[in-house]
């Protein structure tokens, strides 16, 4: 009877802080032991940067969030910073909800009908975005002369290219912009521009042609995909007004973008170097094997093999819990797109590929 009573009341005793800590430590140890025995999945399919954004960018966003978020945000400081960054006028800049959303809005404005030539392979969703806008997407070889001769309503280029990493030198791009028919729009998807060898002189490109639109993103090198932050550069203010979200971009996203433009260069430089280092590491590991990929810039690698098709490669990797994007997404059976991460991930990928 007494024992039953004691047991009843003992169940209402709280755990001491030591006991709570011990329980948490035991759980952590169990998790670690499980991690050692399991092969964790390796996601090399996502095109976003694998690390979180710089803590200062998050701090800037948090600071903005703790301020007057009841008011509509004023994007003037951001527009001015971006204009200074690219050597253009403030009226030539429009912040938006990421490069994808800006391109979507741009195609609805300029490609409601007619042919839109897309240098292919390019960013995967481009044909769908053009189609949704009412235009006719036409994949074309990434040859500037061929694209210029096509006479399409708009020409879309991706530099550095997703998925190949190839870049178009700024002078070539400016020459192409001058050569292209005046009635055509030139749309440059420069979401990966921070990984390229050139800082990107959009001012010169905008000066070379009236009907040009450059779309930049903070989702890649700035690792801010979750903020949905990007911007467009163009001469046509009416077009930029149509690209600007109603009410503007959120205050936290603007604050993070502003920090990235003002102080994020060092972080971007480190990430650019990291991506280049991993490309080099993978090329070295695959040297002399059936695997190869074109040289380029950025963390995206367009991998192919002379011995196996893309489907076989992606299945083989998936069996080892490494996930890449099969080339079928671009209508290409030979390739897979790999997003490079860090040295350990590259080594694991190379080891798995060499087992094939």
């Amino acid at each position, binding site marked *: 009877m007494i024992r039953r009573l004691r047991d009843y*009341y003992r169940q209402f005793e*709280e755990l001491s802080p030591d006991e709570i800590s011990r329980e948490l430590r035991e759980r952590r140890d169990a998790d670690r032991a499980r991690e050692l025995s399991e092969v964790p999945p390796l996601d090399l399919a996502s095109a976003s940067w694998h690390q979180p954004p710089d803590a200062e960018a998050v701090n800037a966003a948090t600071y903005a969030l703790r301020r007057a978020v009841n008011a509509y945000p004023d994007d003037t400081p951001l527009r001015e910073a971006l204009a200074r960054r690219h050597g253009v006028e403030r009226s030539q800049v429009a912040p938006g909800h990421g490069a994808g959303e800006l391109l979507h809005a741009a195609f609805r404005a300029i490609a409601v009908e007619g042919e839109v030539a897309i240098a292919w392979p390019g960013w995967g969703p481009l044909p769908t975005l053009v189609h949704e806008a009412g235009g006719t997407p036409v994949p074309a070889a990434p040859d500037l002369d061929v694209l210029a001769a096509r006479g399409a309503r708009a020409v879309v280029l991706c530099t550095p290219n997703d998925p190949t990493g190839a870049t178009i030198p700024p002078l070539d791009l400016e020459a192409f912009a001058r050569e292209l028919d005046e009635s055509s729009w030139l749309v440059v998807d420069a979401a990966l521009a921070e990984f390229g060898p050139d800082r990107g002189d959009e001012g010169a490109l905008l000066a070379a042609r009236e009907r040009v639109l450059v779309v930049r993103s903070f989702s890649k090198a700035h690792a801010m995909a979750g903020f949905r932050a990007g911007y467009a550069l163009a001469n046509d203010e009416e077009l930029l007004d149509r690209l600007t979200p109603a009410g503007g971009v959120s205050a936290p996203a603007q604050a993070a973008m502003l920090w990235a433009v003002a102080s994020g260069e060092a972080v971007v430089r480190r990430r650019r170097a990291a991506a280049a280092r991993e490309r080099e590491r993978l090329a070295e590991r695959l040297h002399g094997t059936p695997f190869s990929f074109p040289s380029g810039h950025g963390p995206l690698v367009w991998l192919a093999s002379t011995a196996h098709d893309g489907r076989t490669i992606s299945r083989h990797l998936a069996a080892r819990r490494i996930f890449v994007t099969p080339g079928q997404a671009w209508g290409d059976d030979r390739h897979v797109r790999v997003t490079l991460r860090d040295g350990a991930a590259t080594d694991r990928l190379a080891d798995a590929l060499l087992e094939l």
Partner: protein
Amino acid sequence: MARNDPTDTGGLFIGRRPGTGPLRYRGAPERGGPGRQRTDAGLAAAVLALEVLLCLTLWGPQPIAWLWVGSQVDYLTGSVSFGIAAAFAGMIATLMVTLALCARLDRAWRILRRAAGHEQREGMLVRIFAVTAVVAGLAFLVWFVVLEGPAPTLAPQ
């Protein structure tokens, strides 16, 4: 220029304030029925009353008892110092014992309150100790200033 001072919280707390986390038990407690919970609530009230009484003894009965003991020591040894020392040592000793007892009662009270269905995080000992000290101090002031006065009662007026 981007403003990014993370220590400027603007009054917004991130995370949980200390001491507001949920109580953690060894397992999910199984409470008794309404009758048992009522009994536990009654028991908790009784324990709390006992705790109050014990604390009150610290401010009256115990010092008086130890002053009496001190006076006896003074009488038997003929040393005022011995008497004072004995009274103070005794007071400190019973204070410690009483507080230890009160702490146990307080723990029992918390458990009974939880058994009665309340999310009882903290005990009442600190508050009872403080309140009884204030009440005893006020009572002493009333007795000393209003009822008795500073003059001795036994000595000739």
